[in-house]
C-alpha cells in the first residue's frame, strides 16, 4: 500500500500527451552481430551438409539427395536473409525511466522494462563475442524469462557504460 505523500495530487491525465515508447529513436547494435549469426548458421549448415553427404554415400540415391539438398539450401538461404533482416530490426533505447528493446523481422517483439522493476544487469561474452569484440547486456526482472532481455552485440565499452547507467538508475529510482 502506498503511503500518501503530503504533496500528493491526482489530476486527470491526458493520455495523448504521455510519452510514446513507439516513437523513440532506437540505437542499433554492432553489425558484427551479423557475422556472429552467420557463423553460427554456417556451422549448422556445414554439419547438415556433412550429414547429408554421409547419407548420400551410404543410403540415398541421386534424386533424393538432390531434393533434400534443395530443401536445406532454401532453408539456409532464408536463414541468412533472416539474419540480415534481424540485424536491421534490432534496436534498443534508454529513456529516463525505462529501457526498450526491439527485435525480430518476421516476429517483431518490443519489450519495455521500467528501471524500477529491474532486478539486476549483467554482461556476458561468449566465445564468438570475444573473437569479434562484442558483448551482450542482460537485464533481469522478477517477471520470468519472457520478461528479461538480452541485448546482443554491443561494443564492450558501451555495454559497460549501459550497465553502469542502469545500475545507477536502479538504485536512484527505487526509493
Amino acid at each position: 500500500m502506498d503511503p500518501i505523500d503530503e504533496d500528493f495530487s491526482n489530476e486527470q491525465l491526458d493520455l495523448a500527451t504521455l510519452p510514446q515508447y513507439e516513437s523513440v529513436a532506437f540505437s542499433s547494435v554492432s553489425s558484427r552481430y551479423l557475422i556472429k549469426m552467420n557463423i553460427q548458421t554456417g556451422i549448422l549448415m556445414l554439419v547438415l551438409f556433412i550429414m547429408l553427404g554421409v547419407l548420400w554415400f551410404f543410403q540415398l540415391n541421386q534424386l533424393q539427395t538432390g531434393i533434400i539438398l534443395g530443401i536445406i539450401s532454401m532453408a539456409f538461404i532464408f536463414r541468412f536473409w533472416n539474419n540480415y533482416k534481424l540485424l536491421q530490426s534490432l534496436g534498443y533505447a534508454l529513456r529516463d525511466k525505462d529501457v526498450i528493446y526491439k527485435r525480430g523481422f518476421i516476429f517483431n517483439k518490443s519489450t519495455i522494462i521500467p528501471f524500477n522493476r529491474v532486478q539486476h544487469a549483467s554482461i556476458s561474452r561468449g566465445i564468438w563475442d570475444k573473437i569479434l569484440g562484442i558483448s551482450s547486456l542482460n537485464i533481469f526482472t522478477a517477471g520470468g524469462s519472457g520478461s528479461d532481455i538480452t541485448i546482443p552485440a554491443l561494443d564492450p565499452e558501451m555495454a559497460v557504460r549501459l550497465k553502469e547507467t542502469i545500475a545507477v538508475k536502479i538504485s536512484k529510482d527505487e526509493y
Partner: protein
Amino acid sequence: MNTEAYNTAQRQSIAGILLIFISSLYKLVKIFWAMGAYLLLSGPSKTTLIYTAVGLVIVTGLTLIYSYVYYLKFLFYIDYEREEFVLEKGIFSTENSAIPFDKIQQVYFKRSILQRVINVYSLVIDTAGSNQKEVEIKAISENDANRLSEILLKAKSEKVEENQIEEERVEAEDPEVWTHKVDILTLLKIGISTNYLRGLSLVFAFVVSIYNRINTYFKDRIEDVEVYFSQFSGVLQSIGYLVSLFVVLLLLSITITIIEVFIKYYGLKIQQTKDKLEVEMGLKTNTKVSLQPRRLQLMRISTNPVQKRFNLYEAQISLSSSENELQKNKIKIPGLGKEIVKKIKSFLYSNSSASQFKTTFKPDKLLLFRKISLAMVPALIFLVLWYFTALVNLQIWAVLVLAGLYIFAAIALQIFSFKARKLIFTEDFLQKKKGFWNKTEETLELFKIQSISVKQPIWYRRKNLVNIVFHTAGGDLKFYAVSNDILRYINYVLYKAEVSKGNWM
C-alpha cells in the same frame, strides 16, 4: 558502514581449485564413461591402452590448468559506492553480474559432500525471480562466508529500512475483521458442479460405444432380417446394460470429484486480520497461506453458469514467489459467494478509488479465424484417419453427421468465446475477461507489471494489430490480435509503473 571489507576483487578459497577440478572431471567422466566402457569391453591392445592412458593424463592436466584459470578469473567484490555486489567469471565466455543491495532477497550457505570434505561453503545470493538469476560462489571459507553474508544482509536491511517504517505506519490502522467458512454443503456443490466436463466425456464415450455395438449387430445380421428381429431384444438388453454402466460410471466420477474436493478444500476458512488475509484449507495436509495485498500479483475469478446459479466463484491468486520458494505462489480458493469475492477484492485492492475512465478493447476478427482453423484440425485428423486407415470404423453418413456436428459446435463455441474476450483498462487496473462457458476474469493492478512485450508478426502489420503480454512476478497476462490503438494505454501502464513508489512485492 564501519568496514569497507571486500571492496577489492576477491578470489574464492584456494581449495576452490580442487572443487572446480573435481567437478569438471566429474562432468567429463559423465560424458565419456560410455566410450571408456566400450573401449575396455572391446579388448583393447596394449598400444591402444597406452595411448588412452596418455590421453587421460593430458586431459587431466588440461582440466587442472582450466580449473586454475577459472579460479583466477572468478572474481567478486562489493562496490560500496554504487551499492552493489559484483561477480565476474568465465574463461571462454565471461559473465559479469552486479546485484544492487536492495535487490538481494536472501543470502544463504549450501554444502555438498565434496565441499564438506575440502571444508568450503557455497554462498548463494538470491534475487527475486527464477533460479538462474541467483549468484553462487561455490568455494568460500567459513570465515569469508559469514562475513560476506553479514555485510550483504546488513547493507540490504539498511537500504530497505526507510521504506519499512512507512509501511508499518500505514498498517497501524484498524480495519474490521471478518471470517468466512466454506461449509460441507458448499463443498458438495463444488464437487458436483465442477464435474460436468468429465461427465460430458463419459457421455461421449457412451454414445460411441453404443453406436459401435449396434453397428456390429447390423453388420453381422444384415443378410437375414428375421434373425435380426429376434436379436433386437438382445440389442436392447445390451443397451440397458450400457445405460446402467454409464450411470454407475457417472456416479463414480462424481463421487471421486467430491472426495477430491473434500481432501483439498475441507475446512476452507478465510480470515481477514489487520493487514493480511489468512487462508486455511485441506483435510490431509493443512495448507495455510497468508495473503498480503502488496504480494498479490494477479487475481483470477472464474465461474460457469451452473456454479453461478449456486453462487459459487473460484478465485485463483498469484503471489510474488521470491521470498520463500517453498511456499506455493499460486493458490486456488473455490466456493466463494459473490459477496465474499467482493470483500476479498476490496481488501486486496483497498487503495483504489473510482476510475475516471474505462476503455474496452476487443481482439480483431483475425483471431477468430485463427481459432476456428485451429479447432478444425481435430476434425481433419479424424477424417484422414477414417479415410485412410481402419482405425475408425464408421459409415459415411455417420462420419458426415459427426463431422458436421463437431464443426457446427466448434464454430459456435469459438464465436461465442471470441465475443466474450475483452481487455478493460481503468485508472488503476487491467482486466481481461474471457470464456463462453467457463467465464474467467483476470485482474492486474497496473503498477505491478514487471515489463511489457508488444509483439507484431509480419502478417499483423497491414492490419496494424499487435499481441500484448504484461509480465508480472506472478505470471503473464496475454491479449492477442488487438488494434494498434492500445499502444496509448501501454504507455499509460508504463507511466503508472514508472511513477509508482509502491512496493510491488
